[in-house]
């Protein structure tokens, strides 16, 4: 029996040793897997063409954690942009870019600047003159946000990635659309992959850049308008993927059929936010993958709309018999017939006396509303 026992003990010891070996091999294999996983999870650059209907808003999350937002959609889309950035766990925008001052690109800026800390703003410097642009610049000034109008040749490193400014090369005037043709055009480079962000650049601005560098992914200019893209341009860029940001059922025919057919004949895989919702392109610097998040109600945002801003509660009923007019500065409200009505820009309109009082307004002592 002892022999047998000895045999059994030896057998048990052998089994134990074998088991330990397997265990170690397992650990080693797991370690190998883990390290492989480490390699597979190289920091990524993630670019989202946010679904803002007919407009643009492009989020770039850099491998080092820094964030750039190029445009913020129209005023009605500002909240949707903020929501998307929060979903992406963005807490600070290092570079906020206004490609050009059209409302469908900067209308959402106030909501974005209200919600996030901003490192600095890059702007086209083009004087459009809208209240929308005025409010955008006034907010930058009031908050003391660093501001610049980078031109062609300007470059900035963001960790291992880089942003090159390709345009504007020089100020353009007398074009079909001067705001569009003074767009800030950026190229984002990470490893072997590059992204071209074109704003609403049209042919006039396009012709000021020569040569156009090869690019992997292009955000198609001007929502796919025929004046933003042509075959020669695509030939120079030879992109693999194109993203169009346009609103479903927009009244301008964007994207134009000429653009789509040029992309098709150049064999560029094209995604349109109007069809697919937000488009997310991520890269490790070598390969790219594209994900779409599905169309939403935003996809169809296009033509007319009332934004319900704070200062204009309703279309001004200033000659109406009903309603009251408040002064946003003095917080006093009046009858529409009062001789002491505030300047139009300082007015707020109330449907009822109670509405005015509930918002902290006092009745005028002259007209006694």
């Amino acid at each position, binding site marked *: 029996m002892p022999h047998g026992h000895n045999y059994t003990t030896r057998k048990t010891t052998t089994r134990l040793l074998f088991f330990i070996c397997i265990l170690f091999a397992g650990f080693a294999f797991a370690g190998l897997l883990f390290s492989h996983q480490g390699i597979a999870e190289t920091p990524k650059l993630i670019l989202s063409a946010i679904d803002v209907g007919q407009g643009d808003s492009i989020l770039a999350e850099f491998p080092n954690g820094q964030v750039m937002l190029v445009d913020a959609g129209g005023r009605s889309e500002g909240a949707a942009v903020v929501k998307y950035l929060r979903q992406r766990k963005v807490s600070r925008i290092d570079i906020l870019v206004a490609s050009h001052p*059209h409302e469908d690109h900067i209308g959402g800026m106030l909501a974005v600047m209200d919600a996030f800390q901003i490192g600095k703003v890059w702007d086209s410097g083009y004087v459009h003159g809208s*209240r929308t642009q005025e409010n955008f610049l006034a907010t930058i000034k009031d908050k003391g946000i660093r501001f610049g109008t980078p031109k062609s040749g300007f470059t900035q490193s963001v960790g291992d990635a880089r942003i090159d400014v390709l345009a504007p090369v020089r100020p353009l005037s007398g074009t079909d659309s001067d705001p569009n043709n003074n767009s800030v055009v950026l190229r984002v480079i990470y490893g072997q992959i590059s992204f071209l962000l074109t704003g609403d650049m049209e042919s006039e601005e396009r012709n000021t850049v020569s040569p156009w560098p090869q690019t992997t992914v292009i955000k198609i200019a001007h929502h796919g308008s025929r004046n933003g893209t042509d075959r020669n341009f695509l030939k120079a860029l030879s992109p693999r993927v194109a993203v169009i940001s346009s609103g479903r059922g927009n009244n301008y025919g964007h994207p134009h059929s000429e653009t789509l057919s040029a992309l098709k004949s150049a064999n560029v895989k094209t995604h349109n936010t109007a069809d697919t919702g937000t488009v997310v392109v991520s890269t490790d610097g070598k390969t790219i993958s594209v994900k779409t998040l599905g169309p939403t109600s935003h996809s169809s945002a296009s033509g007319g709309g009332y934004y319900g801003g704070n200062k204009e509660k309703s279309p001004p009923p200033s000659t109406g018999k009903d309603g009251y007019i408040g002064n946003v500065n003095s917080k006093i409200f009046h009858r529409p017939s009062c001789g002491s009505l505030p300047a139009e820009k300082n007015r707020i309109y109330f449907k009822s006396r109670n509405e005015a009082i509930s918002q902290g307004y006092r009745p005028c002592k002259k007209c006694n509303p």
Partner: protein
Amino acid sequence: MQKMQSIRAFLDRIEGDTAILLLGEEESVRVELPLKWLPDGVREGVVLRLDASIDAAGTEEGKRKVQSLYDAIPNEP
């Protein structure tokens, strides 16, 4: 005389034959109009005034025409 209502309208952009206007002092209403309805020579970045007044004669004429059609079509429920 009826007081005319004058609305500030910023011509934000032109897409083909369509003008996109931002209305009101805070540009809180966006509308699209055929470009040909706007004065000659308008360009992006121009501030327009949209003047609205009641066309009493036009109002009367519209009502009169509709009424005359009601009168002309036999009413046979």
